[in-house]
């Protein structure tokens, strides 16, 4: 096995979004084409130069790619849907990177697009039944983790809620965020209580939207005359699936393993990271994953967060986009949207939410199953 960085260099050359929003009458095709056109304009390339397309999607419909991309001109390129639960967009991006790294394509696009229409889980068709069924929805899975974290580390519900306070402050600065209001601790802690210590504002909104990222090889950057100074290198791409952890939480264990591979492949340490976008679907996740990634000692993330270490301008900016909690989690788009944010931050183009001196960033998603996908990006030296 060889890591991505030993293949052809892969560069993110264009990113674009359709704002994340509550479910509306807007067709998914319009959401996706909006994001693609934004990414094409950002890169300065024409649709006719795109050689392959991967669509990250999980909740909309079967075979949805061509019905969307035809509005850009039917060029006949290969296209496919990539479904990997919450990590669908991250996995689509990984596939686009692999095509470019392997030389199968010089220019590829990953597009995440979804409308919250169908959430079909596999346990039914698998004939798997347990004692909990619908009594244990995702928010209760994470409420159990939250209470375990509070019990084990002496953290407080207020410290948990501060994750949402920070991410709402960041989301308020992001025109593509679904939740665009900065919230106080009192607002985050206010009812409705959902499960365990989690209130409504500590659970991410699941709406609709789209995100697109164009990746290219050096050949194409030269041939098409793209602005190489704005290109961001994809240093590594790591993906893993759950194994048997015997009591340890699987999302945290998977995050630890996958992040380590991604950082090792990039020849970096956690301390080298300036910006991190992670799967903060529920407040407790940000704390758990910061510790799993090695960005905080075990049991210390809550305290370090309340000291401002993960703020924009802090030690490492975490969820500068607003994260899943404020930017939103429309499923397919989310992982690609993280790439858009990190690329924007590393280019120094994030405006009021810019983290000063950002050179290296990490994007992390987990998905039910469970799976984990991590990418490390870096500006040109």
């Amino acid at each position, binding site marked *: 096995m060889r890591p991505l960085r030993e293949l052809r260099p892969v560069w993110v050359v264009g990113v674009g979004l359709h704002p994340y929003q509550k479910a509306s009458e807007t067709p998914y095709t319009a959401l996706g084409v909006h994001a693609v056109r934004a990414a094409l304009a950002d890169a300065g390339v024409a649709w006719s130069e795109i050689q392959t397309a991967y669509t990250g999607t999980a909740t909309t419909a079967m075979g949805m790619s061509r019905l969307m991309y035809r509005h850009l001109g039917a060029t006949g390129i290969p296209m496919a849907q990539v479904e990997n639960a919450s990590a669908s967009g991250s996995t689509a991006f990984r596939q686009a990177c692999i095509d470019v790294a392997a030389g199968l394509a010089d220019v590829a696009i990953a597009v995440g697009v979804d409308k919250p229409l169908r959430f079909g889980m596999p346990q039914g068709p698998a004939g798997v*039944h347990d*004692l*909990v069924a619908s009594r244990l929805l995702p928010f209760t899975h994470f*409420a*159990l983790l939250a209470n375990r974290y509070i019990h084990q580390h002496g953290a407080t519900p207020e410290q948990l809620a501060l994750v949402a306070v920070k991410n709402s402050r960041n989301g308020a600065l992001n025109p593509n965020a679904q939740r665009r209001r900065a919230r106080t601790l009192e607002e985050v802690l206010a009812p*409705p209580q959902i499960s365990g210590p989690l209130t409504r504002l500590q659970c991410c909104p699941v709406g609709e939207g789209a995100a697109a990222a164009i990746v290219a090889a050096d050949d194409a950057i030269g041939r098409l005359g793209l602005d190489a100074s704005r290109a961001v290198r994809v240093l590594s791409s790591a993906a893993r699936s759950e194994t048997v952890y015997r009591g340890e939480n699987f999302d945290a264990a998977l995050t630890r393993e996958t992040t380590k591979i991604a950082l090792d492949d990039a020849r970096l340490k956690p301390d080298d990271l300036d910006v991190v976008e992670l799967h903060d679907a529920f407040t407790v996740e940000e704390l758990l994953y910061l510790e799993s990634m090695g960005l905080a000692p075990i049991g210390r993330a809550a305290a370090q967060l309340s000291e401002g270490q993960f703020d924009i301008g802090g030690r490492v900016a975490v969820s500068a986009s607003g994260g899943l909690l404020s930017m939103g989690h429309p499923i397919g788009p989310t992982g690609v949207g993280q790439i858009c944010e990190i690329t924007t931050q590393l280019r120094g183009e994030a405006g009021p939410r810019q983290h000063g001196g950002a050179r290296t960033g990490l994007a992390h998603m987990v998905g039910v199953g469970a799976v984990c996908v991590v990418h490390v990006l870096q500006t040109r030296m």
Partner: protein
Amino acid sequence: MKTAAHPGLYDPDDQALVLRGTRCADCGTAFFPPLGIGCEVCGAAADRLAAVPIAAAGVLHSVATVHLHPGNDISAPFAMGEIQLDDGPLIRATMIGLPDLEMIGRRVEAQWVVARTDNDGNEIIEPRFAVVPGAAPVGGAS
């Protein structure tokens, strides 16, 4: 008449509070819910997976009170627990009452509870867990 709320996972007429699990003859791992087809740990085929009783007793690993529930099988608030069973599996199950976080690390065991009565008058039975009175907190729950 008593009917299991989760058919195949336990027998509500059984005096012993046990769940129906699986043990792999090759690697020894115990599973609940039961596993067919192949072993998650070592990949052994279905003929190496045997049905075994799993004691519905262990240590409370975490607990959460659920305030929002879309179904009508139980009314919120109710509590869900994560339990490290003595026989190996880490499971989730409904708790009796609304335990607080102080109960994490305490020994728990199941009781047969009438979840509801159907239109024919059958009692729908399910196991729910409660702290064992008097048992000391257990340190180092895995």
